[in-house]
């Protein structure tokens, strides 16, 4: 069943409608009265056919472009229903839903994650969107059932990890402490391994994958399934590198722990020694 979608009209939308209504009133007046085409009539018609439609066009363009970034816009094609419903579901633990609950993404989460970045990112994203509309209305996507759509429709190109790294910056120190990140740095940079894959951070839309819930992270599955399993599609060299990095990370943690313990032991010894010295001084004092 299709979810009920709200379309709140923004103030710019009201400007568009108001300008259009005024223009239509002027046009209606001209068509009804058919006045003589003197200077005043020309001026009034310039407002009705030039100025007000220009205001209407400008505001409708801004409103329309803004609307294309909203989740309900993506959901206006029924084949997107499972994705949109999941992204807006407060109970869902998929990557898309968790990002949708983040106020930074909110109801723009489809656009923020799927828009290409860079110099030509915006027009290329809009062109891709136009292609989707063409495929939906002309090439028959609109006749697909949800099951057919889930089976047949897939992302057109591998998801670019750069989109994740716009927010989750790879230059932060924390990012570099994760063994998988360090071991797979090249694969992540070349999109050979996706951040949103099974074994890493989980699929963004797990219901659309054959292995379904396997794509969900540990937090969504409970404690009986291994978290951060090494992605099975990786070549053995990459798996070895991950194991090596994990071993190094474990060694680093063990060394840190040993250093902390040694520091604590030294502090305890120093305190004991100081107490002992204080006791000796008290005995010597008459």
């Amino acid at each position, binding site marked *: 069943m299709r979810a009920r979608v709200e379309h709140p009209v923004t103030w710019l939308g009201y400007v568009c409608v108001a300008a259009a209504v005024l223009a239509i009133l002027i046009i209606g007046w*001209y068509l009804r009265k058919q006045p003589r085409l003197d200077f005043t009539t020309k001026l009034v018609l310039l407002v009705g056919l030039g100025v007000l439609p220009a205001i209407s066009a400008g505001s409708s363009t801004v409103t*329309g472009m803004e609307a294309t970034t909203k989740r309900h816009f993506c959901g206006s094609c029924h084949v997107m229903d499972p994705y949109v419903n999941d992204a807006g579901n407060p109970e869902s633990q998929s990557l898309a839903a968790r990002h949708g609950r983040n106020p930074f993404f909110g109801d723009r989460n489809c656009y923020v994650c799927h828009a290409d970045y860079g110099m030509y990112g915006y027009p290329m994203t809009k062109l891709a969107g136009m292609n989707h509309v063409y495929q939906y209305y002309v090439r028959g996507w609109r006749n697909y059932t949800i099951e057919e759509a889930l089976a047949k429709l897939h992302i057109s190109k591998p998801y670019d990890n750069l989109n994740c790294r716009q927010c989750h910056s790879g230059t932060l120190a924390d990012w570099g402490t994760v063994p998988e990140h360090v071991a797979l740095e090249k694969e992540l940079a070349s999109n050979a391994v996706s951040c949103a894959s099974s074994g890493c951070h989980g699929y963004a839309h797990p219901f659309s994958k054959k292995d379904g819930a396997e794509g969900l992270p540990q937090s969504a599955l409970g404690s009986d399934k291994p978290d951060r399993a090494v992605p099975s599609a990786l070549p053995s060299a990459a798996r070895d590198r991950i194991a090596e990095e994990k071993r190094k990370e474990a060694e680093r943690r063990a060394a840190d722990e040993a250093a902390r313990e040694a520091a604590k032991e030294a502090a305890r010894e120093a305190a004991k020694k100081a107490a002992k010295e204080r006791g000796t001084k008290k005995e010597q004092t008459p």
Partner: protein
Amino acid sequence: MKPPEFVRRWHVHGLIRVACYLGVVSMGLMCWSVLRPAALPVVIGMSVGQGLGVLAFLCYLLAVINDISRAPPASTREPPSTRDTPT
């Protein structure tokens, strides 16, 4: 400068009437895209709607140019002062 002959043949009021109808349709489409921001209305509002709006304005401009070019030039008109002077 006068517009080409085939343009001058178009009736001024007819052009403005066409502009009015095109304008109404274009603004209807633009309002549709604002009130129902789904894929098809937005695409049609921003392409067909705005295209028709531009066409309507061009028709209006053409009508005004035609009207001005048909009016007799100011230098050939008889000045009102000579008509009103008593003989």
